[in-house]
């Protein structure tokens, strides 16, 4: 039994497709949805745990790539450039896993890596390019 946690970025044109159903039906994978962010006409994001036969898993990944879904293994490889971060807090309202926390007195924003699901939302929203995700 193979298991892996992955992050999927759906382009807006694929949001309406039953991708997860296919993973289950065609590749016989067991899935557990950890987080989702899917809105009509908007880029979607999903964090999944997939379990199943390794060969089937690899085929499923190939299928996802073919469909044009950006894919990454969930890992703790989002980093913050401390020189670039100005602690504005824009990341706070987009982070789905509450990985950022603000000190109510100093307004210093801390990044709690252990809570990060490497979705990349903060990377897009940070005006100072302080957040980086390595694929």
């Amino acid at each position, binding site marked *: 039994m193979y298991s892996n946690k992955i992050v999927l970025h759906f382009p807006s044109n694929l949001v309406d497709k039953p991708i997860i159903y296919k993973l289950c039906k065609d590749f016989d994978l067991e899935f557990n949805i950890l987080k989702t962010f899917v809105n009509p006409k908007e880029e979607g994001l999903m964090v999944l745990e997939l379990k199943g036969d390794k060969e089937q898993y690899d085929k499923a990944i190939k299928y996802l790539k073919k469909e044009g879904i950006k894919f990454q293994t969930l890992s703790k490889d989002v980093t913050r450039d401390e020189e670039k971060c*100005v602690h504005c807090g824009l990341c706070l309202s987009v982070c789905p896993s509450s990985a950022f926390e603000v000190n109510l007195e100093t307004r210093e924003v801390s990044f709690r890596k252990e809570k990060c699901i490497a979705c990349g939302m903060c990377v897009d929203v940070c005006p100072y390019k302080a957040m980086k995700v390595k694929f």
Partner: protein
Amino acid sequence: MIKTIAQINEKIKQGKVVVVTAEEMKTIVKDKGASLAVRNVDIVTTATFGPMCSSGVYFNIKQPKPKIKLGGSRVFLNGVEAYAGFAAADIFIGAAALSPEGPRNSIYPGEFKYGGAHVIEDLVRGKDIKLEAAVYGTDCYPAKKIKTLINIRDINEAVLFNFRNAYQNYNAAANVSDKVIYTYMGTLRPNLGNVTYCSAGQLSPLLNDPLYRTIGIGTKIFLGGGQGYIAWQGTQHNPLVKRAENKTPLSPAATVAVIGDLKQMSGQWLRGTSFRGYGATLTVGIGVPIPIIDEEAARHAAVTDEQIFTQVIDYSKVYPQGAKEILAKVSYAELKSGEIKIAGKKVPTASISSYYKAREICQILKKRIEGKEFFLTEPVAPLPR
């Protein structure tokens, strides 16, 4: 008037001046009252650190041989278009300038990774900047093109000149439409998904001197890490808006134009900034000392986030169409709590300006005054009231 600026400067010279940050002033006035505070405190330091698009730098390059006239031709700095409608060797680069070849918003939402503000940050950090121009040539300036590296060390003058900065209060932004929008107030999620705001609130210079009694034309300030001056009222300066009882405006009001020697400044306090789907801008650090000349000045500088209000505006329709409706009136204390309520709905909030960095500037300015590196100036003219 209890104290004059000249008397306060004398105290700085003698090492007897009492400087507190705006945050500290709130506590002092709350605990001891304004009449005691005015006797105990000479200067309150205020600051803001946020994106300010109407910012730019002008500089003068050393002439090559043969000489060149840039005036009237198109000039590029690291590919970003600068303005050269002046004499032979003067160039102005604006924070929001872009490369004419860049993708801009054609792949929507654009990333705007490198614009005029990034050129300014690179310049101030001492990096080489590629200067390119093709010009028409004259009898006195025969060169027809230039492609060279320039550096802040070897250009004649470099001056930061921002003609609208440090807004006295600003809108909070929301999005009532059903799709995500990309604005200068950041990415706004659909159906009131979030609210962003951009003011240092109780630390903000013009909110601590709401009637511009001491801040005026000629006021010396902390600017981008160096020293600068308030040169004029900023564009869109509008002192006539509605105000609360404590005199703070309820919507965007006063602005200032600021000027200073770029060669003294640092990349830490002038940051190239990119707003997805919107453009490039410069995040500027500004600190303003407020002399506590009388009880009214002390009272004004004691204003807290609970007592400063702004309006939440819809940026999907109301703002673009120039309509007047507001979604809600909220205090900065509410905005800073991380969540506000609009029509019964809980909406998460996020700040664009950095309160944390504004606090740091308040401390730096306080130390500079205590260290006799920074003296106050008397305004030469008031800001329009």
